[in-house]
C-alpha cells in the first residue's frame, strides 16, 4: 500500500474544503481499503467522513431518508425499513458477510467498484483501472461479466445488492457538492454505463459527498422478493440477481418493479417487462412472458450465455416468490 495521510473531519463543509485532487473520502472503508491494499486506489490521503454523516433512518412526509452513514447491518434491521421497504433489507442481507455489513455504509455501497476479476489483478490490462490499456475480460473469463449495456471498453458489472433494490424502488441520492450546493440525483441516473469513460462508475460530481438516500413511499412492501443466484449461497457476488415487487389488487397486478444485478455496469431496471406486467393476472404464464421479454433484451458475451437462461429463471422465480412473501 502506498503511504498516505489520514485526517478526520467533523463537518461536511470542512471535509469538502479540505478535499484535494489525490485525496479520497473514507466512510466504512470495506471496499476502498481493499483497493488500496491492491494498489488499485492509490490516494495520497484519506479524509474520514464517518463522523460527519447521518447514521439515522428517518421517516419524512413522502419518503424514507437513509443517512449516508447508516451501516448495512443497521439498515437491514431498521424497523421503518422493514415496515415500509422490506425489499431493501432483503437485498442488503443477500450481500457480503455480517462482518462487512457491520462496517459498510449506505453511501459507500453505492460507490463500491466493480468486482471484475481483471480489475482486481493489476498486472492485467483494464480500462477501468488504467484507461486505454484494454479490457481483459472482453476476451477472457466472462462468468461474472455483463450481458447488457456493455461495450468493447468494459464488460464489468456493478456488484451491489442494495442498489438493485434502491433502483427498483426509484430512490434518489442526495448530494452536497464542492461548492456546498445540494443536489438530488435520481437513482436511475446515478450509476452509468461504461460508454467512453469506463473508469467512471457513476455521475457523482467530482469531490461531492453523498449525504443521504431517499426512498419514496410506495406500495411494494407486501409482495416483493430479492433473488440472488451465485456460485455459493453466501459471500459471493451475483451471477444474476433480481429485485421484484408487485402491487396487487386481488390477483391483478396494479404496478410492478423489476431490476437486476450482475447483468450490467449499473443496476438495471427492466422497464418493458414492468409495463407488460401492469394490469395482468399474477400467474406463471404472465411471469414467464415477462421473463421472455427481459431475455430478448440481453446480449450475452461468448463466455456467459448461460446468464440469459438463468436470468429468465430468476425473474420467473422472483415474481412467483412475490406472491408467497
Amino acid at each position, binding site marked *: *500500500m*502506498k*503511504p498516505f495521510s489520514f485526517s478526520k473531519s467533523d463537518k461536511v463543509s470542512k471535509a469538502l474544503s479540505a478535499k484535494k485532487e489525490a485525496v479520497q473520502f473514507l466512510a466504512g472503508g470495506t471496499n476502498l481499503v481493499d483497493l488500496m491494499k491492491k*494498489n488499485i486506489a492509490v490516494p495520497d490521503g484519506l479524509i474520514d467522513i464517518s463522523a460527519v454523516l447521518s447514521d439515522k433512518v428517518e421517516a419524512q412526509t413522502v419518503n424514507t431518508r437513509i443517512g449516508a452513514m447508516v451501516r448495512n447491518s443497521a439498515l437491514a434491521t431498521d424497523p421503518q425499513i422493514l415496515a415500509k421497504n422490506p425489499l431493501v433489507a432483503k437485498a442488503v442481507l443477500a450481500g457480503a458477510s455480517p462482518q462487512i455489513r457491520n462496517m459498510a455504509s449506505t453511501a459507500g455501497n453505492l460507490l463500491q467498484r466493480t*468486482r471484475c*476479476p*481483471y480489475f*482486481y*489483478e493489476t*498486472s*492485467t490490462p483494464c480500462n477501468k483501472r488504467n484507461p486505454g490499456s484494454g479490457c*481483459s475480460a472482453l*476476451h*477472457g*473469463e466472462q*462468468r*461474472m461479466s455483463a450481458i447488457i449495456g456493455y461495450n468493447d471498453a468494459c464488460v464489468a458489472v456493478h456488484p451491489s445488492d442494495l442498489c438493485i433494490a434502491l433502483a427498483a424502488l426509484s430512490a434518489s441520492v442526495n448530494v452536497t457538492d464542492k461548492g456546498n450546493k445540494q443536489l438530488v440525483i435520481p437513482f436511475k441516473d446515478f450509476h452509468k454505463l461504461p460508454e467512453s469513460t469506463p473508469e467512471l462508475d457513476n455521475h457523482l460530481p467530482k469531490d461531492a459527498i453523498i449525504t443521504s438516500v431517499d426512498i419514496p413511499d410506495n406500495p411494494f412492501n407486501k409482495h416483493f422478493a430479492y*433473488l440472488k*443466484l451465485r*456460485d*455459493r*449461497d*453466501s*459471500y*459471493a*457476488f451475483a*451471477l444474476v440477481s433480481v429485485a421484484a415487487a408487485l402491487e396487487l389488487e386481488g390477483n391483478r397486478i396494479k404496478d410492478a418493479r423489476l431490476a437486476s444485478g450482475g447483468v450490467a455496469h449499473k443496476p438495471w431496471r427492466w422497464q418493458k417487462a414492468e409495463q407488460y406486467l401492469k394490469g395482468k393476472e399474477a400467474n406463471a404464464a404472465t411471469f414467464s412472458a415477462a421473463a421472455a421479454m427481459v431475455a430478448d433484451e440481453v446480449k450475452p458475451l461468448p463466455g456467459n*450465455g*448461460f*446468464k440469459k*437462461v*438463468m436470468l*429468465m*429463471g*430468476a425473474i*420467473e*422465480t422472483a415474481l412467483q416468490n412475490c406472491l408467497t412473501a
Partner: protein
Amino acid sequence: MGLFNAKNKAAAVLKGRVEGIAKVTGAGKYAAEYRVDNMCHAVFAGSTIAAGTIKSIYLENAKQVEGVLAIITHLNKPGVPGFTTEAKIKDTRAGLPLFHTDKVYFRNQPIAMVVANTLEEATYAASLIEVTYEEDKATVDFKKAHPTVPLSLQGRERGSLDAWSSAPVVVDQEYDIAAEVHNPMEMHATIAHWTAADKLVLYDKTQGVVNVQRTISKIFEIPTENIEVFSEFVGGGFGSGLRVWTNAVGAVMAAKQVDRPVKLMLTRPQMFSLTGYRPAAWQRVKLGADKEGKFLGIHHQGKNGTSAFEPFQEGLTTITRMIYNFDNLKAEQSIVPLNLGTPTWMRGPGDCTGAFAVECAIDELSYQLNMDPVALRLKNFAITHDPENKKPYSSNFIDECITKGAEMIDWKQRKQQPGAITEGDWKVGYGVAVGMWGAGRGNASAGISMEKDGTMTVKTAMTDIGTGTGTAMQNMTHTFTGMPKDKIKIELGHSTLPTAGSQGGSTGMSSISGAVSAVCEVLKKQLAAYAAAINPAYKDAKPGDVLLSATGVSLKSDNNEFVSLADIWQKNNLTTIAVKASSGPGAERQQYAFCCSTAHFAKVRVNTKTGKVKVERAVCVADGGTIVNEKPAANQISGAIVGGIGMALMEEIHPDDKLGNLVGNDLAGYHFAVNADAPMIEVAFINKPDPYVNPSGAKGLGEVGIIGCAPAIANAIYNATGKRLRDLPITPDKVLI
C-alpha cells in the same frame, strides 16, 4: 514453547479439544504470530507473465522506500549451497530453486524479495519493482493441452481388455475436474532466525516439522539437529503443509542476508500460486459387466496437470485397484505440463479425483442395468482380500458402511427412474458413492514426563493440523494408563520433541497411537520398578496390570497393592520421570492389507429454472477402525464433506488462457462451500477395532472422508434430473444448459 493445552487448567471438567481454549482465546500461536526480537519482514514480488525470461529488473524506486534493508533477485542472490547443482536441487525436493533462474515458468513466480523493517514498507517497495520480460507463449488451459499428451501403462495390467470385449453392458465415458486450491485459513508463513552461523530457529506453518528440518538442512547444508522448528498450532493444511514452499526458503535466505530474524507470510493471492493445488484432471473410464451386474473389467485412463518445471503425478487410478473385484484391469496415466505452479497432494489426493470417475461410471452402469447402485456395489466389493495383492484385509467394513448409510438416508425413498420426484420447480434425487484409502502407519516416537503430583506431559514432534491429534493422545494415554485426563498435558509440534513424521496421508493417528501405547508401557514398567522398592508385589508386574491414578499406582489384583506417588518419589529420590518410546509398522504389513473406507449418500434438490443445486442431506458412514475420539473424528468427516460439496459444486481455478493469471485468486473469487451451502451432515462410524493395524485399532480418517463425496452428489443430480454431468464443478450454468 508452551503446552499445547496449557490454558485448559482452568476448566473444571475437560470437554472437547485439549487445545480448544488456547485456540479460541488466541493464546495458541500460529507460525506468523510469534514475536522474535529485532524481526523484520520479507515480501515477494511475483512475475507478471506466465512464461519467458526476465530481461531487466529495475529496483531504484523500491530501494528508495524507507525501511528497506535488502532486495534479493536472481542477479544478486546470496549463495545457497543446496542450489548449486542440479543433483542437489533435486535432492532438496524444494521444487524450483528460489531466485536461481531468469526463466519464468508461471505467473506470480517469486522474482524478487524485499526485506524491510515493517510489512507495510516491504509490501509497498515490492509494488515499485519494475521488470521487463522476453515473453514466451504460455500454456495454462489443461483441457486444451491434454489431448496431445500420450498415455502410458500405469501399474500392472490384470487379465486383459480382450477378456471382456463382448461384455453385454458397457459404460465408456470421459470425466473432467477443474483444479482446486487448498487455501487453509492460515496463510503459509515462516519466521526464520539464525541464532548462530549454522543454527536456525524456524516458526513455520507446516504439517511436519521433521520434513522442514530435512529440507532446510539440505538447502542450506547445516545439520538437521541445528534446525529447531516450531509448528505448535496449524490453521488447516489439507496437504499444502506437506511440502516446504518458497516462504520458508525465502525467509531463511533473507534472514541470512540481513542478519536479522525475518518473517515471510504469503498473501492470499500468492497462496493460489505458491503452495500447490489439486491439479485439473481428465479421465476416461470404460467399465463392463454381465447382465446380472457382475463387473467384468475396467479400463481407466487419466491425465493430470503439473508445472512446466516439475513432474507431479496424481494417483488417479490407484483407487480403481482397491475397492472392487476386477479380474481385468488396465490403467494408463500421464501428466500435462502447464505454466502454473506445481500441484501437490490435496485431501484425498488422487483417489478423490479417481473415485469421481469410477463411482460415476458405476452409477451410469447401474442405470443401464436398471439395478439399485447400492446393490450393484455390494455385489462387486472385494471384502475379504485386497484385489491387487491378494492379501487378506486386516479389516474391511465397506459393505457395512454402505448398508448402514442407505438406512440412514432412507434410501428406499429414492426412485430408480431419474427425474421422478418433483416439488414445484425443484427436482429431488438421491446418490451414492464410496471411498477407500490405504490405512497406513509410519514410525513415530512419543515421550512422557511425569511429576510427583501425577501430572503427565505426553510429547511428540508431530503436528496437530486441526485433526484432534493432541486430544487423541490424551484420550489414549488415559485409556492405556488409567490416569485422569485432567492430569494429562500435551506438548507437540516442535522438532526437539520425540520425532514423528508429517501429519498426512491419514497416517498421523495410526502412527502416533502406536508411539503413545509404547511409551505408556515404558512408563508403567518404570513406575512398577520404582514401586517394587516399596512393595515387592510390583517386582514382576506386567505393564498391562499396572494402573495409574492421580495419587498412585495399583495392580490389577485382589488387594490393589496401592503405592502412592509421594512414596515412590520419596523412596527413589525422584524429581521427574522421563520416558520415551518409538513404534512403527512391522510384519503385519507383509501379511495383511489395510484400508479405511466411507460410504457417501446425498439427497439433492435441483432447481429447474435457476440451475441451483442444494445438498439437502449428506450422510457418511466411515470405517476408521476404533474411534478414539468421536467428536473430532466426526468433525474430520463433516469437514471433508464440506470440501466434497465444494469439489462437486463450486471449487475451480480459472487460469486465463491468454494472460496466464488465475482469475479471481482470492477468497471472494474462489468459491468453496460455506455454512450456507452445507446441510446438517450426518456421520456414523462402524467403530470396530482393526486387529492388526496398531495397538489402538484406529485407522486414519482425514483423507477417506472426502473420497466419494463429490460423485455421490453428481450421481444424486443425475437421479434428480436425468442429466449426467461429468465435468466438475457442477455449477448452475452446467445444470441449466
